């Protein structure tokens, strides 16, 4: 639910209930005031009648005084206490009963007890009440409508800088060097938020840059010692007095040094790809490139008697030759290395998709983590960066890299 909707909901509920309670109180207050007024008038009427009776010593005829109906009823009951009440008013000239207000009280006349009842039409006051109620209701409705409309517009307007900031934050890219653009808000709160975000993003970016710089420097610094190790080993093996056991040890050191140097190169390559430092884009014929790669890997695949089936359409891409080489190298060497002997590899290239399938383990790989750094299969000799590099290269060109396991085939597909 949107903030405006939340706000509107609360706002409308509160306003509506306050207005309704107010209207009810208002209604009863008006009602009371009007009744009081009618009762006052009736009281005057009564005193007039009583004065008349006392002065003239006779009961007034049952006529309508000011359209009020006056009745005298002889009664045996003693003076009943005077009371005011609502009743119906029968207008002799008009048909139908209308509401009216009545006074009833006792009067003593010539030794007899009479009950006097005066009924006054309250039609006009009812009409007044109706009008007031209608006006109040219309006012409530109008107020609600205006409130919700203004709320909507004012809120939208007030929150505009917020949505601007949000869009900025969504577009935030940690590896981009451009700094966060301040939106120059006049509202203090948003200006604060703006500053806080700008500060945070620049801090995050600096940290990220430092980290990358560190990775790069660390990798570089490792290369020279590695070169020393390699050259020392190269010199050591020239010694003719060494025995077989020594050479075995040296071979292991060679292996470890080689692994370390490959790991280093992969890390450096990742940093370069992530920094978009490789930009030598060329128009490449993928068909040709893949055919070349298949030829290049023929020796490797033939040694495991792996059959490579390729169904290649034509596709040209605007990419770096270097990166594309690495991408195909990684995918193909994976497909061969993790294959069974006498297995098979299928390669399909269409205008919008490159698919490489290979036989291998009969269980699917974890598709959530295979593209993560240092994730590798239990039998893998690599450093676990190959697929990460492939994925990152795909990201550079906005390609979608997917893994699936179909019919015992590990399927890697790139959607261009």
């Amino acid at each position, binding site marked *: 639910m949107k903030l405006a909707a939340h706000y509107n909901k609360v706002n409308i509920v509160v306003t509506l209930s306050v207005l309704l309670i107010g209207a009810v109180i208002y209604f009863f207050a008006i009602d009371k005031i009007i009744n009081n007024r009618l009762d006052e008038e009736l009281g005057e009427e009564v005193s007039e009648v009583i004065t008349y009776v006392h002065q003239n010593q006779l009961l007034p005829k049952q006529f309508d005084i000011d359209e009020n109906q006056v009745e005298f009823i002889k009664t045996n009951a003693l003076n009943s206490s005077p009371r005011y009440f609502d009743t119906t008013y029968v207008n002799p000239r008009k048909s139908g009963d209308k509401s009216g207000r009545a006074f009833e009280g006792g009067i003593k006349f010539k030794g007899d007890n009479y009950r006097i009842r005066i009924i006054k039409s309250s039609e006009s006051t009812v009409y007044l009440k109706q009008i007031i109620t209608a006006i109040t209701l219309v006012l409530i409705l109008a107020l609600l409508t205006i409130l919700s409309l203004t709320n909507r517009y004012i809120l939208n307007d007030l929150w505009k800088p917020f949505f601007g900031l949000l869009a900025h934050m969504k577009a935030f890219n940690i590896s981009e060097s451009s700094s966060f653009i301040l939106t120059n808000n006049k509202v203090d709160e948003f200006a604060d938020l703006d500053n806080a975000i700008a500060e945070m993003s620049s801090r995050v970016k600096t940290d990220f840059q430092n980290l990358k710089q560190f990775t790069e420097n660390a990798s*570089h*610094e490792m*290369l*020279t010692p*590695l*070169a*020393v*190790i*390699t*050259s*020392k*080993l*190269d*010199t050591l*093996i*020239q010694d003719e007095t*060494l*025995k*077989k056991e020594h*050479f*075995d040890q*040296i*071979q292991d050191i*060679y*292996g470890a*040094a*080689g692994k370390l*140097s*490959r790991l280093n*190169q992969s890390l*450096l390559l990742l940093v*370069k790809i992530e920094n978009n*430092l*490789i930009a*030598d884009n060329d128009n490449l014929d993928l068909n040709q490139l893949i055919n070349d790669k298949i030829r*290049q*890997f023929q*020796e*490797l695949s033939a*040694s495991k008697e792996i059959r490579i089936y390729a169904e290649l359409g034509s596709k040209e891409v605007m990419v770096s030759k*270097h990166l594309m*080489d*690495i991408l195909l*190298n*990684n995918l193909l*060497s994976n497909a061969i*290395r993790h294959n069974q002997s006498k297995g098979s590899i299928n390669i399909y290239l269409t205008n919008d998709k490159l698919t490489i399938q290979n036989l291998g383990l009969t269980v699917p790989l974890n598709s959530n983590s295979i593209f993560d750094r240092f994730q590798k299969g239990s039998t893998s*000799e*690599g450093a676990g960066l*190959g697929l990460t590099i492939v994925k990152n290269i795909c990201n550079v060109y906005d390609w979608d890299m997917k893994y699936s396991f179909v019919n015992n085939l590990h399927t890697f597909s790139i959607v261009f």
Partner: protein
Amino acid sequence: MKILIVEDEQGLRENMLTYLSEDNNICESSATLADAVAKLASYNYDFVLLDIGLPDGEGFELLNYLKNEMRGEAVIIISARNSLDDRIKGLNIGADDYLVKPFHLAELKARIVAVFRRKATSSNNNLIFNEIVINLIGRTVFINDVEIILTRKEYDMLLYFIANKGKVIAKTALAEHLWGDEMDMHDNFDFIYSHIKNLRKKILDVTTNDYLKSIYGIGYKFTDR
């Protein structure tokens, strides 16, 4: 050949010096840019092996110096930086090759020999090792005047061996030379074994001298001794 090695890392410098100081090569070394420039100002060399990251400046300065002085020294850059920009920059200023650390000394030697051969203006395009004659332009190999047909890998291997003759070459060095690290052959040396086997057989078909010797599973040596 007179070779100047400019490298600040002592261990590496000494090993390069030892490895290259044979075959009548004279090697000298500098650990700093200033020292290298001083040496180059006084003497002529055939080769300069140049590290880019030196304590007192970038190796590119030395390249510029050589270019401005119109010197004929061949230069191979040895750098920990494997960036395309550096490579292009180095080659543009006049370096003849670019070798990324870490490298095998055998690879360095092979590169030096290759650059030297390329630069040599002699009309003789034949590389001769005893009875083996290699025509570098036609990429053909004759032994005792009989041509032997080698595959591309076998031919590359033979050149590599002759450039490092008398030295033990590690299998890993050979694998890297033949397949590059991009192929990622890892510890799979079966291919090398089969290529070596084939090359050796082809040589032994026409001569009785077995130059290729296997050294305890660590590598191979091409020697006439």
